[in-house]
């Protein structure tokens, strides 16, 4: 989200500079501020790419990106294959998404169309509050309580498995998704609903055939942005399951995500060494994924803004 606003504001400020000239000091100040935040983005990218150059050179891009084992500290068969980390991130985010998307959309529809206005006035801020809880708190819950339930329900020795992470990430995704998707549904003009009701459509028909299609791009953007939250989450993931870089899609196994890898290993990697540089490469991949998802969400949202003009 922040990224979107920043680039958007930057674009506008730049357009102003380029085509209309400054309208005085306030614009100049705003322009400098946006310029600074935009350059932070560029600086971060440059910093990551620069730091990862050694790893890409020595290990080779194919091995680094698609190698099947990540054994950075092994003395005899050290390996820097990022695939297990990417798959780990994918697995946990995927589990989180298949839990969060149906529940999140259900909550959204309830909140937007079914709940009494007074109930909504209470629930919406409550859900948005959930989005603001620090991830370490969710992590603590996953580690101390959820883990036990997962172990019990699925008959495992312990619940420190990918699924535990998926569940807690789902819990973290839902408030973001509901909040953004509800905004999208509420933004559908009342006149459209009235037109549908006036034709004898029921509430459900109106929801399904008018409101949801009209809000669809906003809902998709909400889903993508909440998935981004899962992909980028570190602390809750660290606390929810054992970080073991195994290449697997088994939800009952430990895996290791990209974010967790950087967080765990950066401290022990020798500064300037190959491992150190490989972690930068992990950062580059994360950065690219984030940028990509953000761009997609941005595209979808602007199409949806266009829909009403």
């Amino acid at each position, binding site marked *: 989200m922040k990224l979107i606003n920043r680039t958007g504001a930057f674009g506008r400020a730049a357009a102003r500079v380029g085509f209309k000239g400054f309208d005085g000091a306030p614009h100049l100040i705003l322009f400098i501020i946006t310029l600074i935040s935009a350059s932070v983005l560029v600086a971060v990218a440059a910093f990551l790419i620069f730091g990862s150059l050694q790893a890409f050179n020595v290990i080779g891009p194919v091995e680094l990106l698609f190698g099947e084992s990540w054994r950075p500290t092994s003395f005899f068969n050290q390996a820097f294959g990022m695939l297990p980390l990417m798959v780990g991130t994918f697995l946990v985010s995927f589990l989180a998404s298949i839990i969060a998307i149906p529940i999140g959309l259900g909550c959204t529809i309830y909140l937007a169309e079914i709940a009494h206005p007074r109930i909504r006035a209470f629930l919406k801020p409550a859900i948005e509050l959930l989005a603001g809880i620090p991830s370490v708190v969710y992590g603590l819950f996953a580690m101390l309580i959820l883990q036990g339930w997962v172990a019990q329900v699925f008959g495992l020795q312990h619940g420190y498995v990918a699924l535990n992470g998926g569940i807690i990430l789902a819990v973290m995704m839902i408030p973001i998704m509901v909040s953004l998707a509800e905004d999208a549904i509420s933004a559908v003009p009342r006149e459209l609903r*009235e037109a549908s*009701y006036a034709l*004898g459509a*029921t509430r459900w028909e109106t929801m399904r055939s008018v409101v949801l299609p009209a809000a669809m791009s906003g809902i998709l953007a909400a889903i993508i942005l909440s998935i981004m939250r899962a992909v980028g989450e570190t602390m809750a993931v660290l606390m929810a399951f054992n970080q073991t870089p195994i290449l697997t899609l088994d939800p009952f196994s430990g895996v290791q995500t990209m974010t967790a890898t950087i967080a765990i290993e950066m401290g022990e990697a020798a500064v300037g060494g190959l491992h150190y540089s490989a972690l930068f490469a992990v950062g580059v991949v994360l950065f690219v994924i984030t940028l990509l998802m953000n761009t997609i969400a941005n595209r979808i949202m602007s199409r949806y803004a266009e829909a*009403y003009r």
Partner: protein
Amino acid sequence: MSSIEVNNLNVWFDDKQALKGVNMTIPEKGITAIIGPSGCGKSTFIRSINRMNDIIPSCRVQGQILVDGKDLYGPGVDVTQVRKNIGMVFQRPNPFPKSIYENIAYAPRIHGTRDKKKLGEIVERCLRRAALWDEVKDRLDKSAYDLSGGQQQRLCIARALSIDPEIVLFDEPCSALDPIATAKIEDLLEELKDDYTVVIVTHNMQQAARVADRTAFFYLGELIEFGDTSQLFERPENELTENYITGRMG
């Protein structure tokens, strides 16, 4: 067949009474205009006829509205059935963000028409009826939002006709349109009045005088006077009506 008989209609929004004891019989066919100052309850009245006020939680309705002798507010009446038989056109054009074709096919489809050919016929008939067919027949699959405001409003009229109603309600249908688009809608109203019972709310007294067979004047939630348009404008019986049509009242 579709006269509208309103008996002692009272409408409240929370504690505020918007309509007070309205009694009125709107004969079938022809155009009936509803005029009156802003906030006098014109929209509330017209929206009572197809029970659109039901979707406003704070709204309470008391009284009878008989269409063909059946009370729309009687026990066991299905609201969607009521609305299915009464078309409505709103103040601002509000086409769905769908294609021109889909805008018209929407209602017949949800009411059970699946046959492509039949839907196509309905779309053509309604668009012709709304004098829009020639302008859009080559781009039925284009977004309704690509049309001009006046065309959008005629599309909304065509959409209202797609449910094959006997009554069509218009709530200030021209207030967002320019004079040329307005004239087109007025011509269209003339065309429709032989087949439909048309009730139109308008802010524009000239418009009422031009198109309406009968005119009703509302003031502060009450029906003050109702009669033939020429009689109401030339020889109003009530002083309030006279003040309003001579411009001595907002």
